């Protein structure tokens, strides 16, 4: 590298053009990372972009832009450019801060844009004294320079403006260095040297090789500690790309209790973990509560409340068989995360308990009917809300997987939820993760349980029971009427046939039958008759089930009618439920797990120092106005005023005019008046 090339490079890197280009490039590069969601699972990117672009984007580092080599290179250039700017400017700036330029020549003062000539009858010494005193009172520092037949008062104020430049620019360098120390550079160095190996998949964490473990004294990291209530953990998981590493911690973290508090609206108010840290070296225990916004720092490691999960709650379940006429119920117990084999004659199934949500806050308010005056509605306090948030109780999320490995996902609420004035158990199902749940609404009976609905369903899907129901219905319908036995048996057969069609495919089965066998003109009327028959028969089935259980019959009222209607809808839907069993949760023992983030960032304080420098620098640069004022007093009674600044704004003009006018007045005052104002 020859000298002129090096010089040119230095010139380029320290130039303003280069700095502004860098700022712009950095802004654009940063924007890329916000458009593309960072740090997602690689599968998600693969689905989104397809295999071709996925590969290209991966190579460009677009899934972790801010850790990509090219991005760090831009940052490095910013640091270099800023450092060179400081190196280049600082000596001159420091000199400018100190100097008064008291050797300025008269000819150069006459070049100033802001200058004025005054006349005084005072002696050079007196005039100079007054000018100096005035300027000092106005916050200037002054220096005299006596020259042949004249005296120059050189004054300066706001020199810190120059210091601001140095502070603000060193701040950028400081912040970048601090950030670099906390970044993943040390880790990447390890990976690059081949010392460490990223773990993937779901291998058991205890059996990970040392190559996938980071030592306790690792420089900087950010990982998650997963710990269920009553358990302990001594490592954090650090996610890297689509894999992870284990970060060893110098303590055991025991979770005593995890708390979630709620507002009266049901929104979460507080997440907190009661933890005990046991130091591995000394064995000393420290008990603390870690909350959101209230982290706890232990030996340079800061622990944050990051999130929470289920820690293996024990669920008490009932598996109701949905096979026609079966009504079989199996009691089960399992923990969240377990997979339970359901032994069934026809097709074995695996029940995978995915998650328990002890609290579900839903907006169940119906839109206000009294819309009234739109403006009126928006007057008054900000406390009004159309939203009616309520906790609708616990729910479980589970999968049922068949022998072929195919699974559907289910979401069931434990308690009935009020809708349109009636109460329903909501049971959702979806075929794929991306779909919304489709909900079956099982009506709660008068006791608030699902029992009656299941009884009803079992009877209606059982051929033998259907015959009995048809007979009962016929008897009730024709009670007191003198009709022939043929008609009686015909009605009974029709009823049984209707129930059979319904039991085969719900309302859809009936609809299909009507469409295929009846002429179009009669379809509408026939459908009405079928529904009437169905409702009547279901009513008989309900009373039959009551008798079988030796319970009092239900009265014939609106509640019963609505229940029959809702039950028939739900039974019809249950044929599309997509599972041969219905899982009901009857109770649970909640075990929560807390996810605590462990961070070690030794560069943090360097960054904070940089921030302080930046604030000071920006304030000095923008709000301390550098001004230089010169007054050349000559023996002939003329006074040359000149003023300059490095930042010309409109108020500079005003300041100069003010100084000029004030000095003019001062210099024309008789000798005796002087002193009254100089304090």
């Amino acid at each position, binding site marked *: 590298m020859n000298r002129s090339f090096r010089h040119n490079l230095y010139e380029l890197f320290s130039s303003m053009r280069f700095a502004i280009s860098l700022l712009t490039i950095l*802004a654009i590069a940063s924007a890329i990372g*916000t458009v593309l969601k960072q740090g997602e699972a690689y599968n998600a990117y693969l689905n989104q972009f397809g295999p071709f672009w996925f590969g290209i984007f991966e190579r460009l580092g677009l899934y972790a832009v801010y850790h990509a080599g090219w991005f760090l290179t831009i940052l490095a250039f910013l640091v270099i450019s800023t450092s060179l700017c400081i190196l280049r400017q600082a000596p001159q700036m420091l000199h400018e801060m100190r100097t008064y330029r008291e050797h300025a020549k008269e000819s150069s003062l006459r070049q100033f844009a802001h200058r004025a000539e005054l006349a005084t009858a005072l002696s050079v010494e007196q005039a100079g004294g007054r000018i100096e005193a005035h300027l000092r009172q106005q916050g200037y520092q002054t220096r005299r320079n006596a020259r042949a037949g004249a005296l120059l008062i050189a004054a300066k104020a706001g020199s810190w403006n120059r210091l601001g430049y140095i502070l603000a620019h060193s701040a950028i360098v400081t912040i970048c260095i601090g950030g670099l120390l906390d970044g993943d550079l040390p880790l990447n160095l390890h990976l690059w040297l081949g010392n460490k190996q990223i773990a993937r998949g779901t291998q058991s964490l205890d059996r990970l090789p040392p190559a996938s473990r980071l030592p306790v004294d690792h420089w900087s990291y950010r990982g998650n500690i997963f710990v269920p209530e009553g358990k302990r953990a001594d490592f954090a998981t650090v996610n890297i790309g689509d894999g992870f590493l284990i970060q060893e911690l110098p303590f055991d973290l025991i979770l005593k209790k995890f708390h979630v508090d709620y507002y009266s609206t049901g929104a979460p108010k507080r997440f907190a973990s009661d933890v005990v840290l046991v130091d591995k070296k000394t064995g000393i225990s420290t008990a603390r509560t870690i909350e959101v916004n209230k982290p706890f720092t232990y030996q340079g490691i800061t622990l944050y409340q990051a999130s929470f999960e289920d820690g293996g709650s024990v669920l008490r379940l009932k598996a109701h068989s949905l096979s026609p006429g079966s009504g079989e119920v199996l009691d089960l117990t399992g923990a969240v995360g377990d997979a339970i084999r359901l032994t069934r004659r026809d097709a074995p199934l695996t029940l995978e308990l995915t998650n328990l949500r002890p609290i579900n806050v839903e907006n169940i308010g119906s839109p206000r009917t009294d819309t009234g005056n739109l403006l009126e509605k928006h007057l*008054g306090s900000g406390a009004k809300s159309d939203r009616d948030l309520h906790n609708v109780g616990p729910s479980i999320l589970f999968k049922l997987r068949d022998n072929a490995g195919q699974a559907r996902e289910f979401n069931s609420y434990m308690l009935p939820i009020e809708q349109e004035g009636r109460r329903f158990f909501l049971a959702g199902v979806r075929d794929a993760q991306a779909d919304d749940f489709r909900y079956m609404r099982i009506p709660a009976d008068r006791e608030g349980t699902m029992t009656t609905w299941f009884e009803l369903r079992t009877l209606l899907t059982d051929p033998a029971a259907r015959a009995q129901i048809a007979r009962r219905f016929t008897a009730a319908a024709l009670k007191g009427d003198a009709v022939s036995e043929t008609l009686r048996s015909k009605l009974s057969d029709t009823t049984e046939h209707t129930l059979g069609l319904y039991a085969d495919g719900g309302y859809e089965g009936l609809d299909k039958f009507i469409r295929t066998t009846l002429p179009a003109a009669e379809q509408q009327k026939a459908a009405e008759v079928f529904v009437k028959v169905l409702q009547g028969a279901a009513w008989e089935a309900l009373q039959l089930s009551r008798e079988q259980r030796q319970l009092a019959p239900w009265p014939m009222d609106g509640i019963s009618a609505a229940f029959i209607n809702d039950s028939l809808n739900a039974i019809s839907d249950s044929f599309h439920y997509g599972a041969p069993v219905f899982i009901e949760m009857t109770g649970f023992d909640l075990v929560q797990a807390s996810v605590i983030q462990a961070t070690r960032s030794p560069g943090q304080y360097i960054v904070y120092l940089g921030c302080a420098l930046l604030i000071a620098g920006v304030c000095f640069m923008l709000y301390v106005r550098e001004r230089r004022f010169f007054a050349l007093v000559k023996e002939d009674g003329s006074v040359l005023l000149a003023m300059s600044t490095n930042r010309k704004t409109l108020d500079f003009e005003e300041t100069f005019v003010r100084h000029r006018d004030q000095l003019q007045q001062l210099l024309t005052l008789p000798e005796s008046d002087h002193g009254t*104002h100089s304090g």
Partner: protein
Amino acid sequence: MELIQANPPLLRRLAPLDWAAALLLALGAAYAFRSYGGYMDGYEKAFLVLAVPTFSWLAWQWSALRNLMGLIALLSLAGISLYQGDLARAEQVFWLKYFLSSQTAIGWMCALFFMATGAFWLGLLARSDFAERTGSALTWTAVLMGFTGMMVRWYESYLIGTDVGHIPVSNLYEVFVLFSLITALLYLHYERRYGTRRLGAFVLLVISAAVGFLLWYTFSRDAQGIQPLVPALQSYWMKIHVPANFIGYGSFALAAMVGVAWLLQSRGILATRLPAPVVLEDVMYKSIAVGFAFFTIATILGALWAAEAWGTYWQWDPKETWALIVWLNYAAWLHMRLTKGLRGAVLAWWSVSGLVVTSFAFLGVNMFLSGLHSYGSL
């Protein structure tokens, strides 16, 4: 001697009303301390103590602001006392329902800002000094009603429940009110500083746009309800991070509108009515300088808060990244002006396009990108 005395130290310039303002502020703080000190943490106590000299200083610098603060206090206290601790009275008491309850007061603010915009434009186009003075007066009144609404809203939030109560700067609805108020106050400051009301027409346009959004957000999304704070927002940092940020956003918006005025001026549109280009450039620079300083402070406060809430001071969350982009944009602007000494069309255009970047950081991130910072999603 009068001229020489024109610039005496601050303390000697104070009028009795200035001292009264400081005294009232101190008494108010003392009362708050005595009654509610038990509910405050150390930082909140520090804010309360520091608020006294800060607001006294502001009142001393700007007597109109001092009067505004007095009126805000008066109206807010009137509203609070009318409530008598019962939210339902917002619907029953005439003065609450039609003037002082938060939604109504903010509604008045919206209407007054629209009227002020109309008055400023009338003044600009018809060269009517009277219309422009009306515009100023309407803007002041809008600010008064807006701040009263915010204060009363703060109180209302505590009436919902003591655990729900919080300063109203926690969601998009509340910060839009804050944005309108801060931008208006900044405008009024420059109006006084430069002795011209001609920029009102332009600055009030951007405020009207914000108010328009606010109304749409209220009427079609019902966003005006007071919601309790999610755990991540329960921090004393919110009280300083958010207002500092909005002084930044407000200043940048104001600078952009002055940029528009400069560009019109340079094309001969409204040229004789608008202030001279040097004045426009000066306002633009001052505004961006103020905005940049506050935005720097706000971003740093945000980083400190993030370190406490999310476990790291910087994690390239979309909101953080866009804050950086805004910062880089205005850093480049200031370099161009201060170091290269650039003036004129480039800086004006840059300042106008800066508003696009700023709006994206403020709104666009919430609308189009997801991240940790999505408290005000649309």
